[in-house]
């Protein structure tokens, strides 16, 4: 019987994963806010989480909700800055930023499905629960997203053969 780990261990183990998911969905400052809100909400609810729960999936699910909250708050605060999710021009010399930029340009559901599954390790059934629709639709959204990234990000072709 393993007991529930101290929350510090949860932050240490999943902090980076959750930050990547937030960054895939939001601008950097908003991503930091969403990360903070996610872990604060998780800390609050943690004593009630079943000891055998999938902690990573639980965190990504919270991050999904917090990303929506942060996006809405940002829209209210700065109505003119209407979700410039595609941000500014990507740094010309950075392959990684190119890929992040390509992901940011995907349609919302594809972007979320790719982020939750490939960055957050969330099963498609759980993604379907978050985005609505069937598990098959969630799987298709992620596959379509990955296919679009491959088209828009040819540099990765060599690695994906």
């Amino acid at each position, binding site marked *: 019987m393993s007991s529930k780990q101290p929350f510090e261990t949860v932050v240490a183990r999943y902090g980076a994963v959750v930050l990547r998911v937030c960054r895939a969905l939001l601008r950097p400052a908003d991503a930091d806010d969403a990360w903070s809100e996610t872990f604060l909400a998780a800390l609050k609810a943690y004593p009630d989480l079943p000891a055998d729960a999938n902690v990573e999936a639980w965190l990504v699910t919270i991050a999904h909700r917090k990303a929506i909250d942060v996006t809405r708050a940002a829209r209210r605060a700065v109505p003119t800055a209407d979700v410039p999710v595609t941000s500014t021009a990507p740094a010309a010399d950075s392959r990684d930023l190119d*890929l992040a930029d390509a992901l940011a340009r995907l349609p919302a559901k594809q972007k979320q499905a790719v982020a939750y599954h490939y960055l957050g390790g969330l099963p498609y059934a759980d993604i379907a629960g978050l985005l609505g629709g069937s598990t098959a639709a969630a799987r298709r959204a992620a596959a379509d997203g990955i296919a679009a990234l*491959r088209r828009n990000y040819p540099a*990765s072709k060599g690695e994906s053969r």
Partner: protein
Amino acid sequence: MSTDDLAAAYPVDPDELAALHERLASAAEREGLLDIAYRILDTPVGPLLLAATDAGLVRVAYASEGHDAVLQGLSDQISPRVLSAPSRLDTVAHELEEYFSGQRQTFDVALDWRLSSGFRNTVLHQLTGIHYGQTASYGAVAALAGSPKAFRAVGTACATNPLPVIVPCHRVIRSDGAIGDYVGGVAAKRTLLDLEAAA
């Protein structure tokens, strides 16, 4: 396009995560969600884990006790809302630094005694009456605690002291003058007694 490719597109700098962690700890403290704050303090008797609830210092642990195991125990016994959050421990850390440099003889921090109960708790409270630089035998402490024959139980209370150094179980020695056992190991006990004898 692999998971690794995608993860590499969002490089996470450890310093950024550390800053976010600090922000989380502050927010948790502000919102009353930080049930247990802890930090590790380097001392002449090795790294000491210091943990506090909002009621006060609840645990001091030597490395030999296994800090991960001690944190797991705090999580199980008190609350899993445990975070590394040094600021709540600033005062006790400062006082310990003064103690180890010979500039302090008593500690002035709130203590949370919830990890000891019954006779052990009675014994540990008696220990606070053994002053800096003094020692007492297990039997003498048993007598002070009202059970002169319970010297073995005094040994157990010392061995399970959740607040060593602060609650001075290191000042309890054998009646024949031998140093006796210690939760942090005999070498640590010797270091503390020598430090206090030198002052």
